[in-house]
Structure formats: structure tokens, C-alpha cells
């Protein structure tokens, strides 16, 4: 049997139950790492506490290596995974807006849920802002549809962009992440 186990045609209920269970794990891990705390999270950008980088890149490494090796051993059909689509210009501008929002809010959408669930009112206000923002942007977006749909590249991956084998890019990301971890430890030691 090859994964993914619950396919598009599978039952909606089993897919939504999986979503709920995976979400519990997601929220639990974020809270354990302290990312439901805005002041701890934002320490990333002032060189005080680089937990965001460490949590994020270790999660990315584990999932990336897991997908790669499960695929290699024929246990996971990597081509069946949904790769978020690339829209270069919208993602460039969107990333800028998102980063600006992040430094004001101190929490991102996922971590704001964890903050709110652990009783933090600031987390709740971030969630309200996101919901109101979605309502407003959704209603205004028709005017910007040309930009919204521009520079679409579909499911586009780094191995395709760089013309390198999958395994080489995976190894490159591992090396880069390990260097980032070493850098993060050095920055934190200096701040103390």
C-alpha cells in the first residue's frame, strides 16, 4: 500500500477527522515550542530568542527528509502530494505585507490560534483582525484580479528551477539549515 492513504475520492468524514487530529498535534507542538507567546516569538527579530527559526527549520527538515526518503523507498507517492502553487509577484508583495503584519501582531495566523487558546487576548485580537481582513480583501479583490492571477507558475519546485536532482536540493537545504542553526546559537550567545 502506498501513501497518501486518504485520497481525493475518499470519504469526507475521514478526511475531516484526520484534519482535526493533525491540527491537535500542530497546536500542541507550537505551544510546546513557546510560539503561542507573542513576546517570545517576536524575539526572533531582535536577536533575543531565535525559537521561530529553530522550530520552523527543524520541522521543515524533518518533513522534507521524511517525504524524500519515504518516496525513495516507494512508501509515498511524492507526485501525488499537493504542492502549493507559485505566483511570483503576488507572493513577493504578499510576503512583504505579511511580514509587516507579523512584526505588528507578534503572531502569525497559526500561532495566534494557540495564543488565543491559552488565554491571550492579544491572540484573539489577531484572529479578529485576520477574519475582518479576509472579509475586506475578499470583497475588494475583484479590482485587483489581474495582479492576483499574474505570474502563475503552478506547482513549481526548486529542483525544477535550479535544474538539479531532488536529492541534491534536499542535501543543500539540510546544509543551509544546519548553518542557520549554528548562526542562531551564536546570535543568542552574543545577546546574553
Amino acid at each position, binding site marked *: 500500500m502506498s501513501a*497518501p492513504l486518504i485520497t*481525493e475520492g475518499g470519504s469526507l468524514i475521514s478526511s*475531516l477527522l484526520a*484534519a*482535526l487530529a*493533525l*491540527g491537535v498535534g*500542530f*497546536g*500542541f507542538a*507550537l*505551544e*510546546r*515550542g513557546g510560539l503561542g507567546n507573542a513576546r517570545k516569538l517576536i524575539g526572533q527579530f*531582535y536577536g533575543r530568542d531565535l*525559537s521561530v527559526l529553530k522550530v520552523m527549520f*527543524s*520541522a*521543515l527538515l524533518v*518533513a522534507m527528509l521524511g*517525504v524524500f526518503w519515504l518516496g525513495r523507498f516507494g512508501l509515498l507517492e511524492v507526485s*501525488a502530494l499537493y504542492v*502549493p*502553487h*507559485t*505566483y*511570483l509577484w*503576488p*507572493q513577493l508583495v*504578499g*510576503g*512583504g505585507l*505579511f*511580514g*509587516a503584519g*507579523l*512584526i*505588528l*501582531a*507578534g503572531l*502569525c*495566523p*497559526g500561532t495566534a*490560534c*494557540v*495564543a*488565543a*487558546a*491559552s*488565554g491571550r*487576548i492579544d*491572540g484573539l485580537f489577531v484572529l479578529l*483582525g485576520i477574519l*475582518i*481582513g*479576509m472579509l475586506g*480583501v475578499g470583497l475588494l479583490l475583484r479590482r485587483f484580479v489581474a495582479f492576483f492571477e499574474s505570474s502563475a507558475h503552478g506547482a*513549481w519546485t526548486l529542483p525544477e528551477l535550479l535544474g538539479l536532482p531532488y536529492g541534491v536540493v534536499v542535501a543543500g*537545504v539540510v546544509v543551509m539549515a544546519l548553518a542557520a*542553526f549554528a548562526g542562531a546559537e551564536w546570535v543568542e550567545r552574543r545577546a546574553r
Partner: protein
Amino acid sequence: MSAQRTPAAYADPYLAGAGLGLVLLASFVLVGRGLGASGAFASTAAGAVAAVAPGSAADSPLFSHYLSDPGPWLEWLSFELIGVLIGGFLSAGLAGRLRIGIERPRQLAPSSRLAFAFGGGVLMAAGAVLARGCTSGQALTGGALLSVGGWLFLAVAFAAAYALAPLARRLWA
């Protein structure tokens, strides 16, 4: 009383990250897709607008996406995000970290902190709509799948936050 308990120290970030990575990997293996967050807000907004003004919802390039089968109230990411709330609550409860309060530096008024939290949320929503995802759906999930857009979003969002950090110092000092 448990609320008076001294909060436990946070877990080692590498360990918490590895746990998060296993959850993300389980998501790929179980359902063939990764984790996300902002999409749950988009689908909820789509459902609300569709209930009040179905025409406006169908006209919106954002909302129309969520109106197809099984509909905005059965969006996968919304169920995942309910799970996130439960998981965050359980973890904080077990560690004695459940506390009603506002996370802010002492010199920043609570009302200011809440206003910036709300405004930051609005900006992140706009950014996530354009980017087709946020830190979870693009940076983490897209990053692990080596998506070009995921890595672009990760790099630009971090760069923007770092670039604006000196201006926002008063909020976090």
C-alpha cells in the same frame, strides 16, 4: 489551584520543531497535503458573505474558490484549525501556562497592544490572500515540498519583518 501553578519552561525548540515536522509528515502521508491556517479564515469569511450576499461571494476571486463542493463550512483547514485550538489549549493546560492576559511589554498600554494585534492581523490576511497561504501553508508546507513560491514567501516575509523591526521596537522593547 492549578491556575496558580508556576508555568513549566518551554520545550527545547529543536524538539518541538521535530515534533511539528512529524505532524506535517503525517499530514502528507495521510491526506497528501500539508498544514495551513489562513485558508480557514478565508473559507469562514466566504461562508459568511455567501450567507448574506451570495452574489458578492460568487464574484470574489477569493470567496468563489471556497463555494464549490463541499462548501465553505466543511473546509479541511477549518477542521484542522479547530484541532490547533484544542492542541494549544491541551499543551498550555498540561504545562500550567493557561492564563487570561495580554502579552505586552510593560510600557505599552493594553489598548495599544490590542490595536496593533488587530491591525497586524488585517495586514497578514491581505498578505496571505496574495501569497495563497501563510507561514504554515506556504513557508512550512511549501518549504518542505521545495516549492519556489513557498521559499520566496518565507524569505520575503522574514526580510520584511526584520527590515521593519527597528521601527516597531517600541512595541516590543
